[in-house]
């Protein structure tokens, strides 16, 4: 129920944001920010209540995992907006958040419990993974904005829709910082995951597809990071890399969920 309220706030927030993207008016209207904050509050409350009810972080099944991800994204967006005032970022993130929350709300109530998912390590593991993915989503958004802005500048035609895109330098900064952030947390997630799995699971869990895919993803982003840091791949190519990397993230998260045995969110048959 709470989730639906949060959802409607997100929806309002998006609708209020959209006009600002194309116009030259400064910043998001106050009302949009307030709507988003309200949505966040309700969403957070829902997560809190679920956590209390389940005695752990409610991320064990697909829908609550999605919801947690959406929550992270919205929180990240607001924090970044306060720092950089990037209206355009909202255009990327908020509809995505809305879809995620919608998916979560539609499936609410079908969570299942498993003794495996209790305990501190899991919580840190899952939370880190999500923070990592949040970082990489922002990297993706920054990369996309960079590419669009660059194309606009090269074409020498300023289309009104893209007036408010952030400068290349800001896109680049955002890209870099979110990349670092994402890398750190994904690494943390992988490490804590290993620790926890080595204690809990039996069998050759090392070859679980999800874990492998995640490691590949992390490697991709690590490559991106080192390329960017050394200056070998500045600008356009990095951006393409980030978009490719995000595709990998989506594969890891969604695709493998349905394939993986122990690691999946669906109850094992």
């Amino acid at each position: 129920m709470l989730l639906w309220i949060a959802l409607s706030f997100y929806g309002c927030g998006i609708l209020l944001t959209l006009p600002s993207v194309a116009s030259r008016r400064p910043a998001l209207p106050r009302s949009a920010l307030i709507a988003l904050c309200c949505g966040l509050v309700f969403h957070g409350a829902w997560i809190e209540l679920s956590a209390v009810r389940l005695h752990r972080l409610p991320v064990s099944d697909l829908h609550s995992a999605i919801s947690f991800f959406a929550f992270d994204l919205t929180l990240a967006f607001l924090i970044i907006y306060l720092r950089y005032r990037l209206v355009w970022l909202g255009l990327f993130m908020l509809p995505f958040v809305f879809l995620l929350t919608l998916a979560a709300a539609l499936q609410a109530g079908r969570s299942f419990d498993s003794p495996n998912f209790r305990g501190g390590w899991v919580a840190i593991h899952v939370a880190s993974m999500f923070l990592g993915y949040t970082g990489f989503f922002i990297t993706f958004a920054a990369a996309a904005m960079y590419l669009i802005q660059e194309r606009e500048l090269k074409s020498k035609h300023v289309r009104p829709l893209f007036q408010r895109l952030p400068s290349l330098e800001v896109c680049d900064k955002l890209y870099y910082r979110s990349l670092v952030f994402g890398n750190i947390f994904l690494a943390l997630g992988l490490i804590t995951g290993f620790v926890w799995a080595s204690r809990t699971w039996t069998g050759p869990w090392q070859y679980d597809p999800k874990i492998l895919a995640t490691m590949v993803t992390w490697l991709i982003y690590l490559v991106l990071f080192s390329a960017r840091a050394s200056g070998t791949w500045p600008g356009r190519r990095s951006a393409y890399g980030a978009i490719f990397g995000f595709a990998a993230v989506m594969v890891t998260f969604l695709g493998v969920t349905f394939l993986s045995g122990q690691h999946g969110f669906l109850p094992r048959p």
Partner: protein
Amino acid sequence: MNLVLVGISHRSAPVEVRERMNIHESRLGAALSDLVAREGIREGLILSTCNRVDLAAAGEEGSEAEPLLRGFLADYHRYDPAAHDRHLYWYRGADVVRHLFRVASSLDSMIIGEPQILGQFKQAYLAAREAGALSGTLRDVSEQALAVGRRVRRETGLGTSAVSVSYAAVELARKIFGTLGGKTVFILGAGKMSELAARHLVSSGASSILVANRTFARAEELAAAFGGTAVPFEGVLDHLQRADIVISSTGSPGLIVSRAAAENLLAARKQRPMFFVDIAVPRDIDPAVNDLDNAFVYDIDDLEQVVKENLAERRREAVRAEKIVEEEVERTLRRLASRELAPTIVALEQRLESIRRAEIERYRGRLGELTPEQRESVEALTRGMLNKILHGPITEMKSRVGGPEHGALVNMVRKIFGIND
């Protein structure tokens, strides 16, 4: 609302005529005092800029403000009406409000959306207030004009994009580099236009300037003006790598920076972006440089194209601004008319109330001793009658506020009820 305005602008007169009518700000106070000292003129406002001179006045009730203002002009400027009348425009009543709102919103400026007019209007307003020339309607309208100007600026994109080539260059630089602080500007070929562009970049935050010119002395001169460094023209390519923004306007018939040279520059800069503003004809920078990653080249045509597109967008925003102004004009007219209506309503009520009391007094004897309830009933009856009688005229007047028949209606009501004193 006895408002009248006379003015002259870049639309109506050439500069030789405008400069004759100009009133320098040092003489503004005296002119304003002179204006409102005249019999029949209660308030005055003078806006005098390089592109316009507007004189607005609010006349006393019942006086003809227009000839008085004409007289002031003739006296103050000692000008020949025959020669200059055709350059003047006159506004009366509601049109004065509309004109002032449009001027403050930069809709009547030579370059629509220019930012100076609002500040200039504010100066004019403050000068008039200081001279004691604003006390009523005109003060209200001026303050509202400033508010409308701010609203237009806030709610439309009217003044936000660059409409000159040098500002366009700054805007583009910002799109690449974000803030310009810490960025280096390289002036390749000292000339008027490159100097202007560099000046804009510096005022937008660029911190270091390098100048190279065939004549080293000229380069030093320009560098000194910016607090920058002059660089020898020979082997300039080696120095260019320090530049984030290059403004190029040499008289060279050939290219200074070829595509290959740019590749080397970018490599030396570890692919940090470079922005070339090539305002030279023939061009200095190989257009193919734009195809390189992290290099952006805009020649003079490109910049003018950007300006053209921005102007088109300004015109679109101007349409929205005009709508806002119209809305505000209506709102202000309605408010002014209501305010002017209030004394009439009060006078009307007072008049009928005094009639009512007089009649009750007259008939006190014939009514005899009344109980308190009966007295109360008589009061209520007479008051009720008056309210119902008054309801019609008052509603009619209120409903026509701001409309064309309003003034005539109010006058009629005053005449009918005998409250014109």
